[in-house]
């Protein structure tokens, strides 16, 4: 037997319940376009008096209406994990793809304006010189074509260097690290980890007070998604409502504290930036996290800017250009030093070997430091193209028309150079470019595949967490009618009480 006013309490509770559910529906509809919002659902259960006695007959479980036990979010934890893993891979390939396209554009040979085109013109100019060796115009042409070639090598190399620097800075100049991609990403990860720890803190407190901080949970899930794009983390939900985030066994966030902080320092020529994980007092937990970050955007940045010979790296292309510069200049210089040039100061001009200049030199005029970035035409030859040793060593001093050595230089085109793995210079370029092409092609294919997978997973997730207007409308009508019914009961109970009161008084 319940109390007289019991019915009023029941009806009132019912009205509140329906009002609350309508509020939830309102919230869902308002947030239909909010990114990261999970549809909220009232878990309605029967409310019982809850008095439990050890004596069976006295135990009463009177139903006292309905109550909202909790407001839960539509969420599939397994799907979330799957999505984050795939998103990690997707971001990894996306970053690799962007950079591989840039590399291809820098070393573009397909449009025939690249290094092979400059080589061709240089060879051709030498070939023309061979048939008219004392013609100043032809000699100057050789010099101009040589300058075009060295400039091409310089620029191509420098552009690659700049690309690498934008990713990981220049290890010889530590201040370039600040604006590098790796540092920007590491800083952002640290911020987000910190935010997650803070949110977890609030969630723990809030849950212990019996509230369901759905907004905070949504925020945290969004941050977890974003972190997964950067690095392939393992996320575990703890019972107290917090999450643990670890990377390859190293704990980054545990409970309400961030335990791992990313820092970036200057490295070496192979890996210009070193990624480290520190604890909150700055002590080093992981001195080189390169091997831990095997996916995600950060993983791609480190890989592209590193020197793993099995992958496509900017350095490998730079090294190829260096090798080409050294071997090619050596081949031409050897011939240049073994011929005869024309001494134009003599009258009439005659062949001479008194001052033999190297054709290609470094910025000090020597050949010791020649590289793709540091290769120039000898300024002595630029100033006086007659120093090109076009004549054969055996010719007499008056035989200024001899171009046999120039012909040999032109025929370096057909020579396989040992230092290029037994390929000619032109062939070496083709090999380098097609190697880049195959690797880039594979990256692009993987990027497409991962793009499709993440699109599908995103839709699948959306189908779980999203708001459907039809559903909300249907629920709205349902609970509106319930509200009406409860209100009706309220007035009936009210009537009944009035009758009872009327009886007495």
């Amino acid at each position, binding site marked *: 037997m319940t109390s007289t006013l019991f019915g009023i309490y029941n009806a009132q509770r019912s009205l509140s319940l329906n009002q609350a559910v309508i509020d939830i529906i309102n919230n869902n509809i308002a947030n239909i376009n909010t990114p990261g919002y999970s549809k909220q659902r009232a878990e309605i259960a029967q409310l019982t008096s809850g008095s439990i006695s050890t004596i069976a007959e006295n135990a009463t479980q009177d139903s006292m209406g309905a109550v909202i036990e909790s407001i839960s979010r539509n969420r599939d934890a397994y799907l979330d994990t799957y999505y984050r893993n795939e998103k990690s891979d997707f971001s990894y390939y996306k970053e690799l793809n962007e950079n591989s396209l840039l590399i291809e554009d820098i070393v573009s040979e397909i449009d025939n304006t690249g290094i092979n085109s400059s080589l061709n013109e240089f060879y051709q100019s030498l070939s023309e010189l061979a048939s008219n060796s004392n013609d100043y115009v032809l000699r100057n042409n050789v010099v101009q074509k040589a300058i075009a070639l060295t400039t091409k090598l310089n620029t191509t190399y420098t552009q690659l260097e700049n690309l690498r620097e934008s990713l990981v800075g220049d290890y010889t100049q530590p201040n370039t690290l600040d604006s590098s991609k790796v540092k920007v990403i590491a800083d952002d990860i640290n911020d987000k980890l910190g935010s997650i720890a803070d949110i977890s803190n609030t969630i723990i407190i809030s849950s212990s007070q019996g509230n369901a901080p759905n907004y905070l949970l949504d925020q945290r899930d969004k941050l977890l998604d974003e972190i997964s794009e950067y690095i392939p983390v393992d996320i575990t939900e703890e019972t107290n409502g917090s999450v643990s985030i670890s990377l390859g066994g190293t704990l980054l966030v545990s409970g309400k504290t961030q335990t791992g902080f990313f820092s970036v320092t200057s490295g070496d020529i192979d890996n210009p930036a070193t990624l480290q994980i520190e604890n909150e007092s700055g002590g080093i937990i992981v001195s080189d996290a390169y091997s831990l970050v095997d996916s995600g955007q950060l993983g791609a940045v480190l890989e592209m800017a590193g020197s793993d010979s099995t992958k496509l790296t900017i350095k490998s292309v730079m090294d190829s250009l260096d090798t080409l510069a050294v071997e090619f200049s050596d081949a031409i210089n050897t011939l240049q030093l073994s011929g005869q040039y024309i001494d134009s100061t003599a009258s009439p001009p005659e062949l001479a070997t008194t001052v033999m200049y190297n054709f290609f030199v470094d910025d000090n005029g020597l050949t010791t430091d020649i590289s793709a970035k540091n290769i120039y035409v000898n300024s002595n030859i630029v100033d006086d193209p007659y120093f090109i040793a076009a004549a054969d060593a055996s010719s007499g001093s008056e035989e200024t028309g001899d171009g046999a050595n120039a012909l040999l230089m032109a025929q370096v085109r057909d020579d396989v150079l040992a230092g290029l793995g037994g390929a000619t210079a032109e062939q070496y370029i083709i090999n380098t470019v*097609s190697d880049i092409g195959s690797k880039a092609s594979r990256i692009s294919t993987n990027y497409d595949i991962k793009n499709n997978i993440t699109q599908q997973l995103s839709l699948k997730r959306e189908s779980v967490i999203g708001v459907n207007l039809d559903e909300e409308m249907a629920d709205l009508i349902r609970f509106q009618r319930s509200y009406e019914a409860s209100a009706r009961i309220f007035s009936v109970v009210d009537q009944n009480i009035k009758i009872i009161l009327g009886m007495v008084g």
Partner: protein
Amino acid sequence: MYQRITNNYTNESVLNNLYSNRSALIELQKQIASGKKFERTSEDVLSSITILSSNNSLGRLDSYLKNIETAKLEIETANKAILTSMDSIHKSRELTVQALNATSGTEELNMMAEQLEQVIEQLKDLGNTKYGTKYIFGGKETGEPPYSSPVDGEIEYAGSTYGSHEREIEISEGINITVNISGDALFGYYYNSGADDQGLIGTLSKIKEQMESSSPDKDVIRDELNNLDDDLTTVLSAQSTLGSLLSRLDITENIHKDNQISITDAKSGAQDIDFAKAISDMQFQEAALQASLQVSAQIIKPSLLNYI
């Protein structure tokens, strides 16, 4: 297959499809605007290798063809010089025969000597023929005229000696040809008071000497007449050498030009688009995009809200 469709699901799905439609459209537009099937090696590595190798081969052929052109012009210049000399050589032969004629007196012989001197001068000038800035009959000494007259009546040849005079031009991979003939083998010379004498100029100079002397030795003239015939043969065979060189160059030139065409074809096959196909693909894609957009507009709108 049951799947809960939310409003965002519909939006995302529709957008994904529109993006992929538009991407395909942009790809086609790029192809049509550039005329090329692809712009980066990674899009088609095998075709790229074909294109790059073709570029290299075409570069070489360009070079060879240019060299052949230069060689032909120089050889033709040499040929013309030789041709010009033929009249004079025949003329000098007639004069020599006339000189052997008993009726020629000293005065007539002297006049013939003067005419021979003209011929020798002309040969000297032809020996100093230039092509552009080069003296072509000096062997490898192309900067200075090979023939000069340091002593009156003598013609000195200062160019490269025959056998070490080759100027070579590359006309094909690994194939060089000698394009020149040196003056000492062609016209000869006569100096050092006759200690150095060779060839046509040598013979004619000796004949002239006899004609100028007060007592010409007809036996010497007769011997030199035989030598003159040999010299004529030398010049004629030089001409035929140059002639066959020219026809070899022509043949090589045609081979290279044919190669150019077939390599360019191969390159085009790997690189260029089929316009008709690309344009019809593009029209199809445009129609698909249109249809997509219309359908998208239809499915995004309705919800229960419209009907309550």
